[in-house]
Structure formats: C-alpha cells, structure tokens
C-alpha cells in the first residue's frame, strides 16, 4: 500500500517526529511504499544538518537521512514554512540573499503542492503533530 506522512513538529521538543520516523520505518520494513514524507509547520526543522544532539541520544535528522538513503525516500520541506523558520538550501539562499545554508542531506525544499499531490496519489495520509 502507498503511504504518505506529514510531520508538523520539529525534532526533540515533541515526540511527533520520532513517532513519524518509527511508523515510516515499520511501514517500509513491512514492504509498503512511502510516496513522500512532507515536513510542515515546525516540522521543517527536521531538515537541518546543523544539529549536534548528545552522544547518548538519538540523532533524529540523521535517522531521516539514513532512512531516505536506504529506501530512496522523498523528504520534502515546505518552502513557506522553511522561510519563516530559517531552513535554507542553495536556491533559497540565492533567492533570499542568505549567506549560509543548513539543509540536511536527502531533504529538499518545495511547495505545498507537494503535500496536496501526496494526499491525492497515496492510499493513506498519516499526520504526526502536537
């Protein structure tokens, strides 16, 4: 079955991103397809490569990147939400005159249409939030 996942909260403050990761991993391990993981609201903060969590704790950003690597996942960060919260890739840096980027590997920034498309194309949309 084809799933899409929506993540509304950033890493660590709320469990939402952890739950979304565990669910997505379990779905993939059962042989389901994941059409897209869409990061909205503070969820976009999952897509920064600048985090350095404590050694004895999980690395949520890396978990997503590694899962995307293994299953060729499409990790999409909402552009409007990302602009409000300071998640930047090369294109955004150029457009908005920013002197640095912080997007994590395997994440890409795109529009809300990607969420709507995911809802249309997938058999199930599962939302994780606060």
């Amino acid at each position, binding site marked *: 079955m084809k799933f899409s996942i929506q993540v*509304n909260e950033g890493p660590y403050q709320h469990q939402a991103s952890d739950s979304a990761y565990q669910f997505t991993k379990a779905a993939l391990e059962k042989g389901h397809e994941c059409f897209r993981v869409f990061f*909205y609201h503070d969820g976009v903060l999952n897509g920064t490569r600048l985090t350095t969590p404590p050694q004895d704790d999980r690395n949520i950003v890396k978990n997503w990147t590694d899962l995307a690597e293994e299953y060729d996942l499409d990790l999409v960060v909402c552009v409007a939400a990302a602009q409000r919260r300071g998640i930047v890739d090369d294109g955004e840096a150029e457009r908005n005159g920013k002197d640095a980027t912080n997007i994590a590997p395997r994440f890409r920034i795109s529009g809300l*249409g990607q*969420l*709507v498309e995911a809802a249309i194309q997938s058999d199930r949309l599962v939302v994780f939030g606060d």
Partner: protein
Amino acid sequence: MSDTKNFMFLNRRAPYGTIYAWESLEVVLIAAAFEQNVSLMFVDDGVYELTKGQDTTGIGMKNFSPTYRTLGDYEVRHMYVDKASLEARGLTADDLVQVEWEDWETEESVDNIVEVVDSDRVAELLEESDVVFSF
C-alpha cells in the same frame, strides 16, 4: 493528475496563539488550486478562527481572518461548524464571518456556506471524506 478527492480540513485550534490555523489555510488554498473537492470543519477552539472583527494591530501579528471570507471564490463549497463547540463557547452563527459562494458557470449562488451541524453530522462528514488533514 485527473484524480479528484474529497478533502476535509479539520480545524481545532484557536488563531494567533499558534500558527496552525493560518498555515492550514495555506494548504486549503493550494488544494483548491489542484481542483480537489475541499471542505472545512471547525471543531473545538477551531470555531474561534471564524469570529468577526479580529483586530491584531495590538499584537503585531498579521490578521489572516479576511482570507476565510474569500474561500468561496476559491471554490470551497462547504465550511462546517460543530454546534456543540460553538455553544460551549457562548457563540452563535451571528458571531462568525459569512462566506459567499457562486458558481461562475451556472450562476448558482449561496449567501453563506458556513453551516452549523450537530455531532452526528460532524462524524458522518469526517468519515465520508477521502482525506482528513489535521494541523
């Protein structure tokens, strides 16, 4: 994409205290542009999103409430309000914005697509949808 689905946006948050209501509205506009059948459901503190007369000058935030009144122009056909949520908050339909709707081809029009419904109907409408968006 030729697919058309019935999208339901479940709104349960007050405006301004958090951004969920506002960013949810952004998805509604995009979904309408993708020509999906879009309905909105206001439950719990979500009914506060529709109050008339919001004035944010004192808090320095953008007043996004005028956008609700334009939803009819984006071909949103249904905005449902949970009756129990409204009553618990001491509000009536008169406290809420009105949203006009007109079909440009058939000239069919509706004065106000904001409709107060009871709990059973809310549950039915949620279950009849193809996708429920929660923010």
